[in-house]
């Protein structure tokens, strides 16, 4: 039997049972569509997080006071709660080879009042002139905090775009005065948008000079975090070791057990991506179960079809069909069903993914890989679940099959 004839036989018999073929396809459609949708949601979340974390600066080491409890992770370590990082630590780190810039930071939430009684509760960052370089911050209007403003405890502030909008609406905030914790600050600049990562909205931030923050607003002498920009990616591990060693000596602690923690951008990214990957696998396995159910549906239909068409199989054998012709026909029928289901499933899954990002604002990404995977999986399901019925059909004895009622 020729290949082309095989296909016309298949389509004749699938079309002869439109409803049943349609329902069987539906099982596969649901399975494939949910796998595609789930994987693309996971992929989209992962892409978005990678992009926004990389947008916060590259080749970065974050020095956090205190130690991480094992198994708790960075996200919930309550950074800033320990008070081991001091301003003069910056000088130690700046002397290390490979360090490009250091940005010491203190953050706190304060109530801020703008004009016309507009107010917001935002995070205030005490930073130095190095902050924009280390953290990839751009200024959209005005200027950033300078070294001399820092030294002179100047009461100046740079607003994040969200904070600027909350405090001034559509008015230009530069040259105007805001009250942070009841103290007047002159607005000298507005930062460009950076978006948000996880629960942190990087646009709802107000920047003030570090020393002003420590001495005037918070009344403290320690830092909540130090961000270190390394000259190149290859130097990150070496710089990290040097910081641990030198800072431990200055703090008079054991370098094996320092009173601070260093996390690179990659560490944070890795942890988050791991969480997302686990979540994606979880979602995809639930979707996979429906795919399995769809596959069993295929097998069920093919077995029913073999029983129902016993006489037809007997006749085909009587007029000269070989075992191979029969088994190929039934196997190809189930593969065609799963492939059609796979194609519809890919389209439907992509539509679901696109509408999720459109209506729910969650970013999704339908990758070529997941499409190829879905194609492969549906073909394999067709072969696996079609094999047994096809074999059963091909082994039927023509005499008994022709007598079958």
């Amino acid at each position, binding site marked *: 039997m020729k290949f082309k004839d095989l296909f016309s*036989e298949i389509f004749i018999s699938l079309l002869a049972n439109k409803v049943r073929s349609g329902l069987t396809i539906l099982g596969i459609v649901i399975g494939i569509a949910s796998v595609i949708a789930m994987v693309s949601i996971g992929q989209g979340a992962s892409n978005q997080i990678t992009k926004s974390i990389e947008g916060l600066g590259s080749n970065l080491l974050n020095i956090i006071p205190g130690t991480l409890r094992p198994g708790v992770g960075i996200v919930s370590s309550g950074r800033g709660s320990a008070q081991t990082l001091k301003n003069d630590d910056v000088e130690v780190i700046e002397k290390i080879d490979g360090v490009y810039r250091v940005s010491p930071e203190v953050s706190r939430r304060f109530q801020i009042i703008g004009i016309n009684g507009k107010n917001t509760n935002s995070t205030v960052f005490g930073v130095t002139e190095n902050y924009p370089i280390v953290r990839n911050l751009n200024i959209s209007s005005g200027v950033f905090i300078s070294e001399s403003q820092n030294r002179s405890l100047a009461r100046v502030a740079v607003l994040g775009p969200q904070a600027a909008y909350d405090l001034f609406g559509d008015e230009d905030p530069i040259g105007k005065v805001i009250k942070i914790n009841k103290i007047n600050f002159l607005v000298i600049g507005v930062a460009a948008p950076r978006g948000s990562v996880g629960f942190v909205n990087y646009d709802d931030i107000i920047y003030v000079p570090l020393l002003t923050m420590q001495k005037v607003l918070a009344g403290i002498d320690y830092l909540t975090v130090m961000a270190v920009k390394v000259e190149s990616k290859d130097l990150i591990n070496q710089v990290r070791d040097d910081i641990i060693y030198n800072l431990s000596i200055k703090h008079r602690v054991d370098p094996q057990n320092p009173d601070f923690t260093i996390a690179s951008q990659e560490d944070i990214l890795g942890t988050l991506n791991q969480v997302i990957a686990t979540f994606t696998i979880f979602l995809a396995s639930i979707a996979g179960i429906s795919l399995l159910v769809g596959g069993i549906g295929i097998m069920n239909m093919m077995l029913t079809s073999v029983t129902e068409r016993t006489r037809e199989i007997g006749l085909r054998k009587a007029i*000269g069909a070989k075992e191979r012709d029969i088994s190929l026909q039934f196997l190809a029928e189930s593969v065609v069903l799963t492939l059609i289901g796979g194609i519809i499933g890919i389209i439907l899954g992509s539509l679901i993914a696109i509408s999720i990002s459109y209506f729910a604002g969650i970013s999704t990404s339908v990758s070529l890989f997941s499409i190829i995977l879905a194609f492969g999986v549906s073909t394999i399901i067709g072969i696996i679940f079609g094999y047994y019925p096809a074999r059963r059909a091909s082994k039927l004895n023509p005499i008994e099959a022709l007598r079958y009622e």
Partner: protein
Amino acid sequence: MIELKNIWKIYKNDDLETVALKNISLEIKEGEFVAIMGPSGSGKSTLMHILGCLDTPTSGKYFLDGEDISKMNDDELAEIRNKKIGFVFQSFNLLPKTNVLRNVELPLVYAGISPKKRQERAKEALNLAAFPNKFWYHFSNQLSGGMMQRVAIARALVNDPKIILADEPTGNLDTKTGEIVLETFQNLHDKHGRTIILITHEPYIAEYAQRIIKIKDGELIDDFKNNNRRIINNK
């Protein structure tokens, strides 16, 4: 052309042995119209299965067109059936929801013949079976019994077989339609020189044949030339 030598067929079911055919030897020449007759359970179906290469004998030899069939495997038998035998069954066994032409083409599909040639030959066979061409594109399940059986006869003819095996071809038809079918067979034999083997349990149907072979309890009990042959002549 057909030569059976000491054919035995024994079915084994656990400890029970059933002898279906006992030492049958016979010869059928090309161009004969033979009726194999016997009551149900006589072994005529078993004999038909062996003649039709659907089954192989337990012992003995079967030569079809000079080839020994008795030791062939399933796929070799399938090929012999495809090339040398045309079947007509009691219950027609057409593919439902498939048009007449496609039904007739089916043996040629398995023979790997090109679509264009298949169409030509299917139409020829339908004409030979006196099937009216206005129904060529109807679904087989929309036809009457007599028409269905003519489609089945056309299907049996399409691969230009050495023998046509008809197993109770009028069993599901009323007398009048049955006669039309039998007339078709007679025509094929008398005018086109086809070899036809008709299996039946009804003596009156066997009388349409040239030669009658009777079997009973798996044994050949009679084999004679039919001198009182019924001839249908409607024209």
